[in-house]
């Protein structure tokens, strides 16, 4: 351990990068070495496990979606993986809620699907990387989109880095937090509210040819458009809560995100002010009574 302490943190990261991306045995034999994003991506691809996958083999899409395999079930939608026109694809199917009145239900579900597609288009126009949408079926409320290859969630990466327990995990994660802050700034400057910012919805993509990971945002199902600083502040608050509860002792890391956000956003002052206000009073709490 004494030797490791003498190495500069940047050298340790560089060494693990140089060891080669395909060598997953490195992480197990060198417990104090921080894994790179590429290593985590490959580790997950090999074992077929990730917080995004939730278990590789699920029940197939059977009658409704031949060739697609269910891999996640949420409150609003089911996610399937398959191939579409030769490309690896994720199918997001919004299902009807039986407790709703059928006509209202149909309208609501279609509206949500439409809204998601619209916001993804808007986000891309602003320069936010998102999965590419290939096809939207408004009859069945299905969105067929790009299955991100060579990617992992920032959640999985932060967990992996922290579990190694090395002292320089901050150094390894800081550049990524920086990138996240920048993307969020661009998003909010485009008046886009994500609505469900968590580290599971912030992906890190890095293929063989890239030198750095790229931040990709997913799941715009609860997104909206708003110029209000309050809405943007709440968006960040949601991320802060999710961040700190999922990843213990990461206050300094989250501060990097906010610092980067402030640096890259043209309208950050009011947003941060609102964030502070929301932190004090909590969300959806009126000071009445």
């Amino acid at each position, binding site marked *: 351990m004494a030797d490791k302490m003498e190495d500069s943190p940047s050298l340790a990261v560089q060494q693990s990068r140089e060891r080669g991306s395909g060598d997953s045995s490195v992480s197990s034999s060198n417990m104090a070495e921080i894994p790179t994003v590429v290593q985590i991506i490959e580790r997950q691809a090999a074992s077929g496990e990730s917080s995004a996958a939730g278990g590789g083999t699920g029940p197939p899409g059977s009658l409704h979606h031949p060739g697609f395999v269910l891999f996640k079930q949420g409150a609003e939608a089911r996610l399937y993986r398959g191939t579409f*026109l030769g490309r690896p694809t994720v199918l997001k199917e919004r299902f009807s809620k039986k407790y709703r009145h059928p006509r209202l239900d149909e309208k609501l579900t279609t509206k949500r699907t439409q*809204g998601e597609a619209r916001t*993804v288009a808007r986000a*891309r126009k602003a320069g936010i*990387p998102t999965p590419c949408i290939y096809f939207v079926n408004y009859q069945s409320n299905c969105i067929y989109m*790009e299955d991100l290859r060579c990617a992992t969630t920032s959640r999985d990466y932060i967990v992996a880095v922290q579990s190694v327990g090395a002292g320089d995990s901050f150094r390894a994660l800081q550049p990524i937090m920086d990138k996240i802050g920048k993307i969020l700034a*661009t998003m909010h400057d485009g008046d886009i509210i994500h609505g469900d910012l968590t580290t599971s919805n912030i992906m890190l993509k890095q293929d063989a040819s890239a030198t750095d990971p790229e931040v990709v945002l997913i799941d715009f199902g609860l997104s909206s458009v708003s110029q209000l600083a309050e809405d943007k502040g709440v968006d960040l608050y949601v991320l802060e809560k999710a961040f700190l509860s999922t990843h213990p002792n990461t206050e300094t890391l989250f501060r990097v995100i906010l610092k980067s956000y402030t640096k890259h956003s043209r309208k950050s002052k009011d947003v941060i002010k609102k964030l502070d206000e929301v932190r004090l009073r909590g969300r959806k709490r009126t000071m009445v009574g």
Partner: protein
Amino acid sequence: MEVSTTLDLYPDTTVSMVLFSGVTNGSEVRKKIMDGTIEAAVINAQMICDPFQVLVAVNKAVHLDKLDKKKTKTVFGEILFNLSPGNNILAAYQKFGVQDAERQDVLVVLLNDLQGQQLQQVSNIIQGTRIPLESLRDIRDEQQIIKLFKISEAERRVGRLEDVVVCRMATKDAG
């Protein structure tokens, strides 16, 4: 030279794509499309980034055709309309359909041409040379595509050009 695929969502539909270079009788081809002699989508190859983009347009056209919710009259017209960023059908045909030029490259899309008969008929009419579909990448006019779709620099950086265009196509009617 001819590439055939089945649509995953509509397995009863086979799509064939053939690329013709140096076509000299564009006006004649257009007449034959309008009078129904040619039943195919004849696309201005310069405006296409990648065959995947065409398949996406075909998939949507077939989808709407099955629901009888096409905006245009034929599934082939619908393919051209889907390729276009706007909602003006005539403009789509003008930009993405066969041009009035002396020489042009066209991508022909046929549906369910299992015996190859339709392709034979089309080849007899079109005065041009069949070239491999891979050549499409060399023919594409990126600047024109970027200009027509009004793709900003920021959006261009999100991914490959074909992905930017495909996403636009897929979300066109989302409002």
